[in-house]
């Protein structure tokens, strides 16, 4: 049976660990890309991917849609904290992040078999691509952020 002092210390340590995790998460979120930028990249990618496949040579100019996103990214990076470049977390390569990344590749390859030609089909394909890609990208981002927090709190090198 633990003494009241030990229990009090354990409670205090647990509270401090919660605060550590919270602050690390906050910094990881603040140093990452804004949510709106991520959504825009996925939306533009869904449109470009679908239309370039449906109307090959005519739709290539749509790639220009990435230019304002690059500009947005450059502006968003100003004044932000620089994430640690080396992620030592083994979970990143073997865990959820890698799984969702592989699912993303699988999704892109599966969607290539869907040959949309009518306007309705093209719109449906854009919507399906956007929703499924957004789901996977959000999951990947969550796994990546978790790995960064763990890496920061566990890796001293």
């Amino acid at each position, binding site marked *: 049976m633990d003494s009241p002092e030990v229990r009090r210390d354990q409670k205090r340590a647990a509270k401090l*660990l919660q605060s550590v995790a919270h*602050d*690390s998460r*906050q910094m990881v979120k603040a140093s990452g890309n804004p949510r709106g930028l991520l959504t825009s990249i996925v939306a533009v990618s869904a449109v470009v991917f679908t239309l370039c496949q449906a109307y090959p040579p005519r739709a290539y100019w749509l790639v220009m849609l990435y230019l304002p996103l690059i500009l947005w990214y450059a502006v968003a990076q100003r004044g932000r*904290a620089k994430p640690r470049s080396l992620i030592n977390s083994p979970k990143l390569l073997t865990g959820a992040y890698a799984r969702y990344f592989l699912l993303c590749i699988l999704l892109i390859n599966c969607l290539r078999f869907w040959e949309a030609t009518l306007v309705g089909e093209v719109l449906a394909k854009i919507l399906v691509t956007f929703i499924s890609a957004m789901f996977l990208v959000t999951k990947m981002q969550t796994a990546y952020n978790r790995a960064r927090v763990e890496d*920061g*709190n*566990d890796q*001293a*090198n």
Partner: protein
Amino acid sequence: MTKPTSKAQFDVLIHAPLRLRICASLAPVDWAEFAHLKQNLGVADSVLSKHLKQLSDAGYVDIERFTKLGRSHVRISLTTAGRRAYVGHVAALREITAN
């Protein structure tokens, strides 16, 4: 949760709640600007400066001041010793909760 690379060691300097929060905020990044860190922690300039000075004197954080396009910037980063002490301290806190 991965295995910490630093030995569990309680660090009295880092243990103060705000200094622990500063280290926790700096842990997942290479560096952060003073304003960004202040915003993340929600504390006053003077309070943050005081605690950063204590960490800097112990060699746990590196404070770099520079001017870019006529504006002054202050970048703060954990040093190798600071990162090691912080990881060790977090491991020690985990040991306390696990017992």
